[in-house]
């Protein structure tokens, strides 16, 4: 029985005098996806940042594997990957260099690992071009390669399919399916329903 479990209890957050998160609670186990929807400004990104421990909620707690994440943030961060709506890439470096530094800071990896991950997201010769010359969709694919390389159980994704063509969106769905089939968890903030099949998808709708 997997003890991987992410729980949020009564999360409240104000931004200035705006009450962004009003008592959000959620629960997610290994092998499940939480699909986070809501109109623009409903607090999807904010909730993701609270869940990954970047933002402290004014009230409520986040629990990972039954422990309050505040207890040991470093250990918690070692088990999660957060990809925001802008892929965290350096414009002056190539995709390969970007992955070597971004992922390499967290786990040891060699050039073959990086090339394989880039193969998997359909990168061809553009893997050796500066990221500034790539399209938004190609950058998104590089971020997906990084996500796979991190090999952590908890994924927190903000609009993972933005800027991707149909094949790219299929790729995201396949990656999510493979991730949860391995027992992983994913929270994805999306505008369109995810096209994953054979997976427990829990919906969570935020209202502005």
């Amino acid at each position, binding site marked *: 029985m*997997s*003890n*991987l479990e992410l729980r949020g209890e009564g999360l409240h957050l104000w931004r200035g005098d705006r009450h962004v998160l009003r008592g959000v609670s959620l629960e997610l186990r*290994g*092998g499940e996806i939480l699909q986070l929807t809501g109109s623009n400004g409903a607090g999807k990104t904010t909730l993701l940042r609270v869940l*990954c*421990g*970047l*933002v*402290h909620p004014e009230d409520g707690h986040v629990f990972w594997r039954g422990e309050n994440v505040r207890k040991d943030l*470093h*250990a918690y*961060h*070692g*088990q*999660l990957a*957060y990809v*925001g709506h*802008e*892929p*965290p*890439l*350096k*414009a*002056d*470096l190539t995709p390969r*260099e970007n992955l*070597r*530094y*971004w992922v*390499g*800071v*967290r*786990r*040891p990896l060699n050039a073959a690992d990086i090339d394989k991950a880039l193969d998997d997201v359909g990168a061809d010769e553009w893997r050796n071009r*500066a990221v500034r010359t790539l399209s938004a969709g190609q950058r998104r694919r590089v971020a997906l390669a990084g996500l796979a390389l991190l*090999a*952590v*159980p908890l994924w927190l994704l903000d609009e993972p399919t933005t800027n991707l063509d149909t094949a790219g969106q299929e790729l995201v769905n396949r990656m999510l399916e493979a991730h949860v089939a*391995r*027992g*992983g968890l994913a929270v994805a903030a999306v505008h369109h329903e995810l096209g994953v099949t054979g997976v427990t998808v829990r919906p969570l709708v935020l209202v502005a």
Partner: protein
Amino acid sequence: MKPAAALVPGPPATPSLEAARLVLARDLRLAFRRPGEIVQPLLFFAIVATLFPLAITPEKSQLRMVAPGVVWVAALLASLLALEFLYRDDAHDGALEQYALSGQSLTWLLFAKTAAHWLLTGAPLAIMGPLAALALGAPIASIPGVLASVALGSIALSLIGSIGASLTLGVRRSGVLLSVLTLPLAIPVLIFGARATQLAIEGTDYTAALQLLGAMAVLGVTLAPLAAAAAVRISLE
């Protein structure tokens, strides 16, 4: 469903020394991809140092008297100029966020970033400092003293500056605020740096002033990354 062995506990974490090496290597590589940013402060230093003889007097004996002040004020302003680039790009493209979520110590990674910053600005300044002093009439024998004082002083300046740079991350057009925040803290470095340089040019014993500069550099190494990491975390909220 059985948990896959691969996911928990996951791959081993990168050792912290290797993580710091990667951060340092990344920043150096980025700087060489865009050399304009590192050349700017150095060029500024050279220009300021050459303007003084034109404005004051070409008389060597008088220039030698003002040389320590000229070298140090120019070095301080040049290092302030370079500070803006320290965290700005990384904050913009989400790299700082990824560092904060890496499971590595943010303090340690920011220390590596500051070390890269010093290698790119402080170290070249330490080489240019004695050259500027020579041009202003300092004797050849003063080179080691001037070099050591600018090198130690610029370590302290980079570290003090990293606090200011992290505190102004959330501010647009942070240049002036950054200077206002950083300059008061940098004044002790300026005083003892100029003093060490002056003593070196006069050919007397400058070790006491150099030791004080060294103490300030050590204090910076111990405390500045902690403060910078705390400020970066707040800016990410």
